[in-house]
């Protein structure tokens, strides 16, 4: 009896508005949520693989399973394109924007998993075999050189992807919170799995976990206040409540503020960015690529849904907040990036600045802004995965060499590497004929009539940020190579494919952006 009442209460919260006491049976459109089910199901199978597949075959089995699941989910997303249903007691909205974001997340996830599957650049893989071993102990030193690998990272990644697929689809804040946790918890673990520089990796994991837990708490607290205000956790109901509710607006504003803090944290937007550089630096680089591309897309998907679906009529209230955090992000990303000496940290600050640019697109709260952000997210995803993929290749005997000084003169040894990386940096800087330029252009164009000064600030920020991208170029091309500098490892096919796809994507979206612009424009529909 008590169990039943818990279920009922829980359900009442999920499907607010229905009478407490009756148990509604939510109708679920399984076709629409099939991609999510495929990924989560495959993740469970992956866990079973860990238990039952012999160690020798586990790596291959997991990689095949993961890629197959992601590809199947992607094909399914493509198959149900154009669908627009709100299902599961209005908790999930599978609308064009959701499907676009899910498709983008899946593409980026496939590329990231390809990076994770690399085994030839480091002994074993970039993932540690036994994460719990005490750093510096003899067992740890043996581990560093052993060929042993641990493959739990693949089901973890699948769980995270599952959460990411739900995150931008959730019309119900409680479900959004669950998705947030489902995507975050595996990421906290994955951040601590680096094979080299274990201490840094563990520090990253702890930092990410503690700050992430804080952010989740903020989100939850905001959710509670909004429930108090609107008597519902459904975004559409919260929107109507803003016209009809008799509750104090303080609840609404506080609730919204706390909620958005939780989301801004996930997207790595200043002033909630402080985890980004440490976590990006400490995590295994393929995991960093995964976080930088997929998490960012999912987090922005959720931000867009909350703002567009739940708070569109109080836009004049939150627009100043977006102004402030966008400017803060751009300034922090581009100014603090100047002082960095580690390539991964530079890319982390670059991602903070980019998050600020993307946020500018939110200001206009119209279709053009939404389409622009959708385009930008895909463009940025390709570029950042390829960039981190290239970072994995610069190595000396201690693993990856990410310090800027170690990159000096790389162009002389590996002109192709240096040229590719330079191209990606130019894309991040937003130079024409790269996807970065088109992305910035459409976002700024969408925001221009409402936020002209913000666009100018963003452009000046881009010019400042260009300086640290150029520093890397200067190092690679114009500086003398050190005596015992790192070399560029020739990767196996998986990494090559991921880097090639990312780079070609960056180029193609810069030169022929029309198809993706059309796609994003058609997808720019969110349903409450």
């Amino acid at each position, binding site marked *: 009896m008590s169990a039943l009442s818990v279920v009922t209460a829980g359900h009442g919260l999920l499907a607010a508005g229905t009478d407490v006491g009756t148990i509604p049976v939510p109708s679920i459109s399984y076709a629409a949520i099939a991609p999510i089910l495929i990924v989560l199901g495959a993740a469970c199978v992956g866990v079973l693989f860990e238990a039952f597949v012999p160690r020798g075959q586990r790596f291959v089995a997991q990689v095949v399973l993961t890629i197959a699941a992601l590809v199947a989910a992607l094909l399914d997303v493509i198959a149900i394109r154009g669908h627009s249903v709100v299902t599961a007691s209005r908790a999930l909205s599978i609308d064009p924007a959701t499907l676009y974001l899910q498709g983008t997340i899946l593409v980026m996830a496939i590329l990231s998993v390809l990076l994770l599957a690399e085994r030839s650049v480091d002994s074993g893989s970039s993932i540690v075999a036994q994460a719990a071993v005490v750093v510096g102990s003899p067992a740890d030193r043996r581990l560093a050189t052993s060929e042993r690998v641990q493959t739990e990272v693949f089901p973890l990644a699948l769980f995270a992807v599952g959460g990411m697929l739900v995150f931008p689809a959730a019309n119900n804040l409680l479900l959004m919170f669950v998705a947030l946790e489902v995507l975050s918890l595996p990421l906290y673990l994955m951040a601590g799995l680096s094979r080299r520089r274990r201490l840094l990796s563990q520090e990253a994991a702890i930092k990410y976990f503690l700050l992430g837990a804080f952010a989740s708490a903020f989100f939850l607290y905001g959710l509670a206040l909004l429930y108090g205000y609107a008597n519902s956790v459904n975004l559409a109901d919260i929107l109507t409540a803003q016209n009809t509710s008799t509750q104090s607006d303080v609840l609404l504003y506080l609730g919204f503020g706390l909620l958005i803090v939780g989301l801004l944290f996930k997207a790595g937007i200043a002033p909630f960015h402080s985890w980004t550089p440490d976590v990006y630096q400490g995590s295994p680089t393929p995991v960093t690529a995964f976080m930088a591309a997929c998490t960012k897309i999912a987090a922005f998907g959720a931000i867009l849904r909350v703002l567009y679906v739940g708070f569109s009529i109080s836009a004049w209230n939150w627009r100043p907040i977006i102004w402030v955090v966008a400017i803060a992000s751009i300034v922090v990303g581009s100014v603090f990036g100047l002082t960095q000496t580690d390539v991964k940290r530079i890319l982390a600050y670059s991602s903070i600045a980019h998050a600020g640019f993307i946020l500018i697109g939110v200001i206009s709260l119209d279709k053009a802004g939404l389409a622009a952000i959708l385009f930008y997210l895909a463009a940025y995803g390709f570029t950042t995965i390829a960039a981190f993929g290239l970072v994995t290749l610069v190595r000396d005997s201690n693993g990856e060499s990410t310090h800027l000084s170690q990159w000096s003169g790389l162009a002389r040894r590996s002109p192709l590497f240096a040229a590719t990386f330079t191209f990606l940096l130019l894309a991040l800087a937003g130079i024409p004929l790269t996807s970065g330029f088109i992305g910035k252009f459409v976002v*700024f164009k969408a925001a221009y009539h409402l936020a002209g000064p913000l666009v100018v600030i963003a452009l000046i920020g881009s*010019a400042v940020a260009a300086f640290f991208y150029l520093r890397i170029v200067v190092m690679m091309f114009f500086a003398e190579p050190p005596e015992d500098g790192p070399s560029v490892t020739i990767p196996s096919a998986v990494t090559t494919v991921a880097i090639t796809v990312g780079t070609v994507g960056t180029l193609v979206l810069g030169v022929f952006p029309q198809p993706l612009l059309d796609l994003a424009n058609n997808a720019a529909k969110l349903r409450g």
Partner: protein
Amino acid sequence: MTSDAHNLALLLLLAIPLVGSLVVFALPNGSERLAKQVTLLASVLTFIYAVVLGVEFKTGGNRFQFVGSWTWIKSLGVHFAFGVDGIALVLIVMATLLVPCVVLASWNSFDTVAGAEETAPADAPNRSPKTYFALLLLLEVFMVGVFAATDVFLFYVFFEAMLVPMYFIIGSFGGPRRQYAAVKFFLYSLLGGLLMLASVIGLYISAGSSSFAFADLVGKVPEGATQKWLFLGFFIAFAIKAPLVPFHTWLPDAGAEAPAGGAALLVGVLDKVGTFGFLRYCLPLFPEASRYFANPILILSVIGILYAAFLAMGQRDMKRLVSYTSVAHFGFIGLGIFAFTTQGETGAVLYMVNHGMSTGVLFIVVGFLVSRGKSRIVSDYSGVAKIAPRLGGAFLLAGLSALALPGMSTFISEFLTLVGTFTRHKALAIVATAGIVLAALYVLLLYQRTMQGPLSAKVAAIKDFPDLSAIEIAAVAPLITLILVLGVYPKPVLDIINPAVKFTMSDMHQTDPQPSSLVQSGGSK
């Protein structure tokens, strides 16, 4: 601009150097000689084709000719649209002439032209001549594109893309402080470019147009504060590029550290994009704002003429000196453009062409001298004309063209510019005239100190100080010849420029002040 015209002529003009560049990039390492030959062939072909287009150009015809337009990004209203008016045409011909000259100048003494005088020998492997020549051709693609684009978005793309090859030319092949100079050059230009991007977006939105085509935007920008802000975005970008004082500080560094050939293109062509931008975009698109800001800009131009001239006199480094002379010359161009008279504008365009050639040849000749003496410092040289008379002669001719001696084409343009300014702003024209005297001073002092007098100990200590070789003469001869020919008979060029200037003036509803011109300028009376 409707997109029904599909003339391939300008596309072909872009394709020749592009293909050449890709071929040179693809050549195997070590095939330097072949790389040079391919580069020379491609650049000469481009030049010949540009001249053919110049001959085909109908001076009484449409404003834009050889128009070709293809939809590029439909949802943004961006067209891959090309077309040239007289102004763009003469600049394209000048640019395509300068490239083969630079290739020839870099032919034998590549490393020395690259300013290797103070760099460590360990640097040598990075200075792959193949890359240098490929970058030159790539730069040529963007240079032609930036002049030929008739879509504002496309113009912006070329404007920014131009930075990348020049950045690597300076950064990989420049002098001892090349890293600093390359980054400074890139960041200054990028900052200007990004401000322009804000204006490009604002232009598109405030014009209420669904297209970025130049013809769809002219006359559409509402007057008032918006127009002024948009004007400033474009103006700062072009002023940095030009460069007008006080936006000039990157040029002396970039000009000094770039290899001589790169510097010739940087100052000769890239910087013309700034003044070209004033004429093509600032004036027609924002006529009211142009008039509003004209006086401060004119005063800055005059300050630039005098200030840069004094700085030039004080330089110890020859390449910095030449860079400062360019800043002074850009003051004249700015004066001519913002005087809003037909003679002024015509003079400014002719000035751009002449200055491209004269500064180009000056940088190339200074490069020859530096490559022999292994120093850029003026006081290290003296009496060079005694042992290398042909070098001395070329140096003198290049210098005389820079100081606008009558008989040189530069004189005609400087005169037109000043006359054009005088009819509207007498005081400014009179003050600017002092710049001519100062120009004579810094050029002749430079010539006297380096070429005349007793042979300096440093030069005498250099065993191998040859006079100009045949290839080096071939590099400077076409430019000097053209400067002399146009100095006597500038009519063909003026005939091409004049209609375009009239179109520009009519775009901004500007008429010449009465009484009209003192100089016959293509039948305006």
